[in-house]
Structures are given as C-alpha cells and as structure tokens.
C-alpha cells in the first residue's frame, strides 16, 4: 500500500479527469476529490448548447458513471469548498470543517463568470451568468418562446446562448461594447462572419454598444436596458457573458504565486513543490516561447490532468499540447486549432460572405500557426496537422479550394 495521499480541489473537467487518470495509471494511495457543486464531474461545453436546448439530460452530462468513483475508491466530497491550505502542515481545511492531509495537492478550481459591477443587478432574479449546471437550471424556465432576451457580451457564451435562444423562439438582442464579436478569440474576418450568421438567424446584434443603466421594476427584476446611445430596450431576461475570473484566491491566501491565475512551471507545479495547478486556473509557460498563458478550454483541462497524473506518480512530464477549441452555433461548427494572437498573415480558403463553410489560416513568418475552420471537419483535420508540424505552405496553395483537404494533407506529408 502506498502512503501517498493525493487531494484534488475542484471536481470539474480537470479534477475529474485527474482522479480517473491517476487510478488508470495504477495509483493505489488515498485519493480525494473535493468539489463545491452538487454533482459528480460533468461536461460543461453542452451547458450553453444541447443542455440549455433541452436535448441532453443532467445524467448525460456526467463524464463518468457515479459508480466508478466508489469502484475506484475515489473519495468524492460534493457541495464542499476548500477554505484554506496549510502548506507547512500539508493540510486542507474544507467548508464542512474536515481537515485533509496531503502529500500532493492539485488545485483545479477553474473560474467563475466575470460579474458586471452594477449594484442594480445583484438582486435581480432575471439576470444570469453561465458556468454551472445550476446556472442553466435556473435560467431555463425563462427561455419561453417570445421572451425578450438581452445578451451582454459577444463572446462564445453570449453567441452560443443566442443561438439556442433563437432556436427556442426567443427575441434576442446582443450588445457588444467592442467593434466586433469574438474580439479576443479570432480575427475581424471571422468576427464579421458570425455577425452575419446571427443577423441571418434573427439576432439583433449591436456592436460598439454598452449599457448605460439598468432599470429595475417593482419585482426587483431588470425590465429595461438603457444603451449608451440612449435607447431603451425592454427585456425579460438578461444574460451576461463577459469572461472568466480564475478562482485563485485559495492559492493566493496560501502564499502561492498568483498572477491572473496560479503560476506553474512546465510540469504544472506551483511555487510549492507539493502543490500543482491545472485547468482554467493554471497559468503555465508556453512550450515554444516560455510566455505565461492561461487557456480556458476542455482539451487544455483534460490534457493537463493526464500530464500531471504522470508527474504526480514520479514520471515528471512537461505539458506540451496543441491548443484547440470549438463552438456550435445553429448549424455552424467552428473549430479552432493553435493560438492566433501572433500572426502576420491571414489566408482565407473558401467563401466568407456566402454560405457557412470556410477556413482561415494564420501564418507567422510563413509558418502555419493557427486556423479557424467553419463547417468543414475535413479542413480541421488538415489544419491540425499543419499547425502541429509548424508547416510552411505557400498561401496560394492554402487558399486554393480546387485542392481538396485530403490532397493538401498529402502534400504536407510529402514535405514533412
């Protein structure tokens, strides 16, 4: 029997995956998974898609059958938060008063929706944020045909909820303070594509528009938004999707290095060698240039979990992974590979202004560094290979739709 004692704080995608990975790899010591939600680990991506739409049940969201945790001797503490970490004593104190000892501690506390700093909104029952299943359960009864929904923020959450709301027959107005949608995630061409799609689907998209004030009725609910242009927008529901704040307070209070997330090294270790951080909350060095980054995505969370599992079992492994993301809106599937924040050339393959299928390649010094693919998993398969190989491809060839994705793939294989 091992004398190891691993405690995981956070039972989301990262924490849940780590617990399973540790047992898969043969770890037989004590293993405790602490989560503040009333559920075994579940998949969050469907929340703003199939689950809100009513096409997927709470049970179907569960990543693993609840029986697995008992079978694998994983102690799950639900509805329980970690209150403090005593690094000297190597203990964690939980919200129920329980004190857990650890030999290795992993923080996978994720993040919470950024709140609008508006006092009027705090007591309003018709203002929603999206992060947990409970958030959607509270919100769904309001999603009736004809209801007037205002969405603050044109990021992925806002756009995915807009898509579901339109499919359910709601009246949707989306307000984005920036000049374009998805400004943090993609280039202006793709932003404009999504503006067109949402417009075609009947969303009233207002760019460069902020809310100046929220008018609250007698019920305490927000009834009217006043835009910075002075327009009054009547609403039944307000959804706010303006980003995520990492839940790093616990780590910070314990004296760990925190700066827009918990800072970790390439093996996902914090400034305390017995404590690791993974998932949305971890800020890790990029394998290429060493710059610290925090990535909010399921693939990042689960891959970090599998990587750190090896490290915890004495086989230190640096986290090297190609980031990828996806979003479903209406019949449009967007797939992103790589990080496009540092590019000097954008190559379009296909037609952006008609239809719902194209690929955008991002090049840096001639190297394919990222791609946004809409409506073409075949192109995504190729893009993933190109980005992984840091391929140098003539932009003229990339843009030529007479060359099929499969041929493009073969050409790359021939060069590599």
């Amino acid at each position, binding site marked *: 029997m091992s004398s190891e004692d691993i405690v995981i704080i956070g039972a989301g995608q990262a924490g849940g995956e780590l617990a399973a990975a540790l047992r898969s790899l043969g770890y037989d010591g004590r293993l405790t998974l602490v989560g503040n939600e009333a559920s075994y680990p579940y998949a969050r991506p469907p929340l703003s898609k199939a689950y809100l739409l009513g096409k997927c049940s709470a049970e179907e969201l569960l990543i*693993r059958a609840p029986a697995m945790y008992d079978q694998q001797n994983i102690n799950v503490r639900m509805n329980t938060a970690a209150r403090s970490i005593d690094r000297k004593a190597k203990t964690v104190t939980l919200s129920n008063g329980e004190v857990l000892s650890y030999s290795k501690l992993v923080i996978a506390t994720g993040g919470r929706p950024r709140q609008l700093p508006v006092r009027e909104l705090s007591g309003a029952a018709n203002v929603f944020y999206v992060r947990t299943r409970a958030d959607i359960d509270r919100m769904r009864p309001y999603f009736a045909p004809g209801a007037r929904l205002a969405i603050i923020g044109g990021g992925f959450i806002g756009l995915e909820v807009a898509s579901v709301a339109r499919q359910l027959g709601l009246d949707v107005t989306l307000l984005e303070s920036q000049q374009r949608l998805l400004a943090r995630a993609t280039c202006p061409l793709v932003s404009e594509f999504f503006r067109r799609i949402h417009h075609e689907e009947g969303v009233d998209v207002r760019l460069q528009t902020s809310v100046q004030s929220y008018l609250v009725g007698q019920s305490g609910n927000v009834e009217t938004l006043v835009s910075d242009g002075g327009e009054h927008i009547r609403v039944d529901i307000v959804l706010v999707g303006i980003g995520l704040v990492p839940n790093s307070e616990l780590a910070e209070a314990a004296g760990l290095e925190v700066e827009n997330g918990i800072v970790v090294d390439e093996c996902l270790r914090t400034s305390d060698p017995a404590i690791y951080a993974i998932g949305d909350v971890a800020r890790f060095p990029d394998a290429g240039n060493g710059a610290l980054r925090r990535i909010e995505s399921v693939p990042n969370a*689960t891959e970090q979990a599998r990587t750190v599992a090896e490290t915890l079992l004495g086989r230190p492994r640096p986290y090297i992974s190609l980031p990828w993301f996806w979003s*479903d809106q209406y019949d449009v599937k967007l797939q992103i590979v790589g990080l496009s924040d540092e590019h000097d050339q954008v190559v379009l393959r296909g037609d952006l202004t008609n239809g719902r299928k194209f690929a955008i390649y991002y090049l840096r010094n001639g190297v394919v560094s990222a791609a946004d693919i809409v409506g*073409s998993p*075949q192109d995504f398969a190729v893009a993933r290979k190109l980005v992984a190989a840091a391929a140098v491809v003539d932009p003229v060839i990339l843009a030529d739709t007479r060359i099929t994705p499969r041929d493009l793939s073969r050409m790359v294989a021939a060069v590599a």
Partner: protein
Amino acid sequence: MVKVTFIHPDGRQEQHEGSDGQSVMRVATSNLVDGIIGECGGDLSCATCHVFVDEVSWRTLPPKTPEEDDMLAVTAVEPTEFSRLCCQIKCSESLDGIVVHIPKAQR
C-alpha cells in the same frame, strides 16, 4: 444492461455493462477503458472516441448521421468502413454483446 466488449490494439479484451441509453463512450470512460477519451462529452467535436466496430456487431447498429460522418474525417487513425464515434452509439437491447476495437491513437 447491455454488454460491451472493448478490444485493445494489443489484443487485450475487457467487457463492461452499459445501461439503456448510455453511450458506449460513457461505458468506456466510466470503466477507465484506456484509449477512449471522449473529450468533448459527446458533442461531435473532438473525434477522440473513435472505434472500429466488429463486423458482426456492425449490422445491428443504426446508421451514422452526416455530422458523425463528417467528424470521422478528423480521427487520429485513418477510419475504415467500420469506423464509428462511440459517443453516438447508444446502448440498447438490440446491441447487447457489441464488440468494438480501439484504435492505436485518438489524437
């Protein structure tokens, strides 16, 4: 309960039970079956639950949707005519005894 047999690339076999309506991907992840990832949770977005369905079992399966077919283009190991994403295979009595082969890689 529906019996599902997973055959690993090295020939190792394991059999698990799925409940009615549960996807074969969830049967795998719930039993820590190596080599089935299911990263996107069954959203048809990741193609990390690729399996080769045994030829006999294949005949008992409902057909693929065009969306699943599209995603089969993204699998790490080249698909065959018996390829499926097992998040889309839902356990039911008619599938009892289904056998699936796990590919060498999922990404």
